[in-house]
C-alpha cells in the first residue's frame, strides 16, 4: 500500500513538474485590460480607443537590456505597418519616471511611449519579465504574448501582425 502511495505521489509530482513551465499565466484569448496613460508628449492615450485596429503593446523598462534592442525593431514595424492599421504602443514600467523619459527620448521612436508608475497595469497584464510584447486584435482580444526579446523575434511579430491585419 505504501509503495503504491509512493509511486502515486511520484507520478503526481512528475506530472506537476512537467506541467509547471507551461502553466505560466497568460492573457491570450482574453480581453485586453483597458488602460489610459500619459505619453511622452504630455497627451493621454487609452487602449480601448484603438478598437478596430491591431495593437502591439510593448512593455519595457530602462534596466532591461533587451528593451534597447527591441525598440528600434518595433520602430521599423510601426513605420511599415502603421498605414495598414497597426498601432504600436510602448509602455514604460520604470519607477523612475524622469530617467525613463530621458531613455525614451534618446531612443527616438516614432510610436507613442507611455509611462506607468502604478502597480495595477503590471498585475492586470501578468507582467513577468521585461520586455513583454502583446498583440491585440481588432476586437480587443489578446491574441499573442511574448515574454523577453531576442534578435529575430521581430519576424515572429511580423507573421502574427500580418495574420491579425488580414482578419
Amino acid at each position, binding site marked *: 500500500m505504501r509503495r503504491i502511495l509512493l509511486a502515486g505521489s511520484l507520478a503526481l509530482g512528475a506530472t506537476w513538474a512537467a506541467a509547471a513551465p507551461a502553466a505560466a499565466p497568460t492573457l491570450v484569448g482574453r480581453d485586453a485590460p483597458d488602460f*489610459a*496613460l*500619459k505619453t511622452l508628449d504630455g*497627451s*493621454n*492615450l*487609452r487602449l480601448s*480607443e484603438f478598437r478596430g485596429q491591431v495593437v502591439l503593446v510593448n512593455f519595457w523598462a530602462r534596466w532591461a537590456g533587451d528593451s534597447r534592442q527591441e525598440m528600434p525593431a518595433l520602430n521599423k514595424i510601426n513605420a511599415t505597418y502603421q498605414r495598414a492599421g497597426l498601432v504600436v504602443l510602448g509602455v514604460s514600467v520604470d519607477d523612475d519616471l524622469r530617467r525613463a523619459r530621458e531613455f525614451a527620448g534618446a531612443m527616438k521612436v516614432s510610436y507613442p511611449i507611455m509611462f506607468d508608475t502604478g502597480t495595477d497595469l503590471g498585475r492586470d497584464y501578468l507582467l513577468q519579465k521585461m520586455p513583454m510584447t502583446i498583440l491585440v486584435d481588432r476586437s480587443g482580444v489578446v491574441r499573442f504574448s511574448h515574454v523577453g526579446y531576442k534578435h529575430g523575434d521581430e519576424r515572429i511579430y511580423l507573421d502574427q501582425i500580418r495574420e491579425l491585419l488580414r482578419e
Partner: protein
Amino acid sequence: MVVGGMLLACAWTAGAESPAATAAAAAPGATIAAPAAPADAPPAEFKTLDQEVQGLKKDVIDLNKDLFVLEEELLFPANTQVAVYVSMDVGTFFALDSVTVKIDNKEVKNYLYTAREADALLKGGVQQIYLGNLKVGKHEMVAFFTGKGPMERDYRRGATINFDKGVGAKYLELKITDKVAKHQPEFTIKNWE
C-alpha cells in the same frame, strides 16, 4: 449570467421554430412558381434567414442591456448607491486632463482623459465617473481637477461637498464651467436631490 444563457437559449429555440422558418422550409414549390427575380437578388430563403439573424442579434442586444441593468441593481442597490458624473460647459478657459474623486478621504477614482473624451464632454456629453456604495449618513466628497488653464498654464483645483446619504440613490455632478467675468474656469459639485 446563467439567466442570460437560459434566456438566450429560449430566444434561439423560438427563432428556429418561428412561423417564418416554417414557411421558408415549405417554400421550394412556391419559389419555382414565382416570377423570375433579378439574377443578383438574394433568394427569398436567404432574406428570411437574414431577417431572423438580425432579429436574434437585436434580441441579444436587448438581453445584454437587461443583464447590465440587473447587474447594476444587484451590485449597487438603490439604498446604498452613489453615482458621480462629470460635465463640462464651454471649456474655453480649461483643458481637462484628469479628475480624482475622494469620498470620506479615500480615493475612489482617478480618471485620465484622452483628447477624444474631453472633446465628447465639451460637446455636451456627461460621463459617469464613479458608481459605488455608501452607508446612509453624512459624507464628504472632494474632487480634484487637473489640466491646462488660461494661458496654457498647468491648473489644479479642488471642489468639496458635504452631503447626506439618504435611503435612495445619490447622484452628484462635477461641473466644469467658464467664469467669463474672471476669465477663469469654475469647478462646482451639484447635489441632485
